[in-house]
């Protein structure tokens, strides 16, 4: 069964500093990987996705993620965070195994921005 691990429950970063959120997945074949962001009281917004090809993926709001097959990782990065980036971030993996599988989500990382 596929699984996603986000090792950091909370991360605190100063505004203007760089950010890296970790995501490790377990899946037997090439995964389809996603990062979603959830602002307080809001739904999930897709930041970026990886299906195939270039392992460095660019997303919205200045985020990027790098797929590393050898490390089973898909870490999210941003060179300079803004106060508005404070939110919950979810990594997810999907597959076409039976054609209809839902996404498997990590438990999330809560990002706090210090002024």
């Amino acid at each position, binding site marked *: 069964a596929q699984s*996603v691990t986000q090792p950091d429950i909370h991360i605190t970063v100063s505004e203007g500093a760089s950010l890296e959120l970790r995501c490790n997945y377990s899946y037997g074949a090439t995964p389809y990987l*996603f990062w979603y962001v959830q602002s307080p009281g809001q*739904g999930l917004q*897709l930041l970026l996705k990886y299906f195939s090809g270039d392992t460095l993926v660019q997303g919205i709001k200045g985020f990027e993620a790098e797929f590393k097959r050898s490390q089973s990782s898909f870490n999210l990065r941003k060179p300079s965070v803004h106060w508005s980036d404070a939110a919950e971030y979810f990594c997810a993996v*999907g597959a076409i195994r039976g054609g*209809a599988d*839902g*996404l498997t989500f990590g438990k999330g990382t809560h990002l706090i921005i210090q002024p």
Partner: protein
Amino acid sequence: NAGVTQTPKFRVLKTGQSMTLLCAQDMNHEYMYWYRQDPGMGLRLIHYSVGEGTTAKGEVPDGYNVSRLKKQNFLLGLESAAPSQTSVYFCASRRDRVSIEQFFGPGTRLTVL
């Protein structure tokens, strides 16, 4: 296009009461999903549907029923609500078997007293 919408946004129930959550999508997507989100647990799949008239169980289906009578709507029912069903419920849709990306609704916050 409204995308994926959910009704209601908030609801408070007493233990034993029943209710139905409505999810609607206007993207002509084949697949639809219901997830629940609990603190520290991420999102977990409750039920899903691969087309009109079809439903299937996900990871945490107990205590819930679903129906997909129309392609654009996916209903989640709680026949006898329990405090353990206090959660935020998200609906999502997906275009078809090939397209993996899911589009999420804004969520329904349900409290069972």
